[in-house]
């Protein structure tokens, strides 16, 4: 039903496009597959500073253009690629106007390489560096579909649109729960810009790279686009409750949630007798954290008794702290024994310096697997079997003693028989 509707819509759109005489990307038929296709938005800084000639003797812009040409050639077929620029159009001095200057150069969709290359060739370094607004718009570009989403931000300077911190913007985008990663590349970076770009990357689980040569830029962008093309499981968004009673019931799968500093999150899982619950949780450090932290995952009965816990602590630089637990529920003698509801509690002991924002919370990734229970061990050793020289010695000794005894017994019996 839906499929026919969509097909009809596609045909209508195609007709409309044809009558309007617009070159239509060959994508209407691919509608079925594009829903799950990975999407990448390349966001390129075209601010005035890109004119600087310090990348292998050419301008930064020339390096970026060359890299884009090569990346566009190498982009895998299934990736929906778009290009967005920032600071490409407004050359003036008015910050307000300059900070709105971001435009979609090539829409996210099936890639027409020639067309995309032509669009890139027209770019010339012009205006401001509105990173924050560009990221917001790029996130809108990528909206829809269930595939992985990635923004690759290439910039040669820090954000020049002061009140809106691009790092906060990145965190907000990530908090929308659309599974978006932002990777950043800094062209000939300075201290402030490195800090800002790595903050953006950290906030969304992405990576930051410093680039000083054209081939490095090409390789890295290619690598990032390829990464986006790898199929990845998309987690299901859920929202844990403050107590077990109100907690959402989870089945086997991968879930994502948010947890603030010092917050508790509860979930519920039904476990049948003879089944095993496996749960693991990762809490990401998506902002500047104090260097000592931990996570606690507890499985608790509905009455509040703790069954088993997983705990982890760490220190130093980290992206994530994670732990897990296993709870095999014993077989029941009764037929039709009811499933037990196990409450799963997640707490973290991250802390941050005073100035760090506490909302939205840190991203949690929760995996739940309910599988058949393990076969229990009745002995430490496998099937109670032994091994080693001591075992052989003992067996030989007792075998010998038994033989000697049996020999005596039979001798005695013969003697008794003889005397009778």
């Amino acid at each position, binding site marked *: 039903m839906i499929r026919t509707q969509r097909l009809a819509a596609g045909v209508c759109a195609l007709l409309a496009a044809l009558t309007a005489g617009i070159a239509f990307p060959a994508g209407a038929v691919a509608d079925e597959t594009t829903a799950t296709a990975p999407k990448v938005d390349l966001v390129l800084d075209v601010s005035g500073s890109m004119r600087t000639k310090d990348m292998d003797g050419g301008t930064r812009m020339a390096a970026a253009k060359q890299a884009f040409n090569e990346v566009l050639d190498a982009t895998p077929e299934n990736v929906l690629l778009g290009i967005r620029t920032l600071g490409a159009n407004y050359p003036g001095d008015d910050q307000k106007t300059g900070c709105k200057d971001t435009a979609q150069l090539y829409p996210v969709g099936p890639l027409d390489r020639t067309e995309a290359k032509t669009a890139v060739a027209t770019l010339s370094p012009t205006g401001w560096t509105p990173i924050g607004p560009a990221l917001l718009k790029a996130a809108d570009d990528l909206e829809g579909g269930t595939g992985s989403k990635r923004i690759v931000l290439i910039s040669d300077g820090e954000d020049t649109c002061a009140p809106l911190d691009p790092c906060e913007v990145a965190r907000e985008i990530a908090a929308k729960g659309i599974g978006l990663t932002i990777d950043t590349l800094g062209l000939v970076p300075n201290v402030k810009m490195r800090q800002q770009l790595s903050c953006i990357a950290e906030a969304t689980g992405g990576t930051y790279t410093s680039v000083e040569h054209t081939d490095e830029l090409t390789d*890295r962008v290619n690598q990032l686009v390829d990464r986006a093309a790898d199929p990845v499981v998309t987690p299901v968004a859920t929202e844990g409750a403050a107590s077990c009673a109100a907690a959402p019931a989870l089945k086997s799968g991968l879930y994502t949630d948010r947890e603030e500093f010092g917050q508790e999150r509860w979930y519920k899982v039904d476990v049948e007798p003879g089944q095993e619950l496996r749960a*693991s949780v990762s809490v990401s450090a998506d902002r500047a954290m104090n260097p000592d932290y931990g996570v606690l995952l507890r499985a608790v009965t509905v009455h509040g008794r703790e069954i088993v816990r997983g705990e982890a602590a760490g220190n130093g630089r980290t992206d994530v702290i994670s732990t897990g637990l296993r709870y095999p529920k014993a077989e029941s003698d009764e037929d039709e024994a009811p499933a037990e509801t196990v409450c799963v509690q997640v707490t973290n002991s991250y802390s941050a310096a005073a100035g760090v924002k506490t909302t939205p919370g840190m991203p949690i*990734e929760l995996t739940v697997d309910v599988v058949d229970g393990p076969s229990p061990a009745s002995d*430490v050793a496998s*099937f109670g079997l032994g091994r080693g020289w001591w075992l052989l010695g003992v*067996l030989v000794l007792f075998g010998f003693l038994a*033989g000697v005894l049996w020999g005596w017994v039979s*001798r005695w019996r013969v003697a008794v028989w003889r005397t009778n």
Partner: protein
Amino acid sequence: MRITRVLSGALLALGPVLGLALGPAAVPAAADSTPSASPSGDSSTPTEAGTSFRTATEIDQGQTATASGSAGDYLYWSFPADSGQRPTVEATVKLPETHTTQTWQIDVYDGLRRRQACQYGAQTRTAGQGTASVELACVLRTVRAWSEPWADDPLPGTYYVRLTVLDLKAADLGLPVSTELRVDSKDIGGAAAVDGSLAKPLVPGIAVTSPKDEDEDDDSSATAVLSSIEPDDGWASGWWSDRWVWTGIGAVLAALAGIGGYTLTRGTGRPRHVPPGA
């Protein structure tokens, strides 16, 4: 290890002579005792690393995986480890020509994302200014077939390796590095054989993937799974260990010793004081 080999060899030789039913069962013992470290065909060595547990690149044991990244990236790989194996993870990081002092670390996590301790090996190492490379290693504990749910003993399943720089100056952030990772394992054999076994290995998402595979085989290649890892020859069923050989040989020797003891005391079958003509 050597004893095992000698023993199983001895049993192989003895088996047919004694007419033991253990004969066929001893063959896997001989095969098991050869080191499993032989490199498998490196037809498709991974050249990328993942950046999270979810995107970790799957590698096989005995394969050398390479990846390029930036200093500051968290690089993830995953590999399968089966019961009786003691995996060793070795990583080499090639650093850029100019850099300041930085500390690198590998962490190994099991299928439940619990951090696994390293018995020995330089898990963390600091590279001085201008050093060309850092080498890291981690020898895990032996993987057991079963453990109490309250213990965090290594169990058969997926293992994750995270390679990252722990401590670096801002100026080094984002500089290109190239990394190499290799996992080999030593077969500990029957010494580590325990009773009990898991119904399914500790592979994340196995409860979701296994029913699907039966239903829609044609689609399974396209759908992403959390971890599709499996050793080349499948997961061990867990019933075989060289303890069968040891116990079997022990039984045979005990029987022989018993016969010996019997003949010693029973004598020729006729008490000495009884005259031959009686």
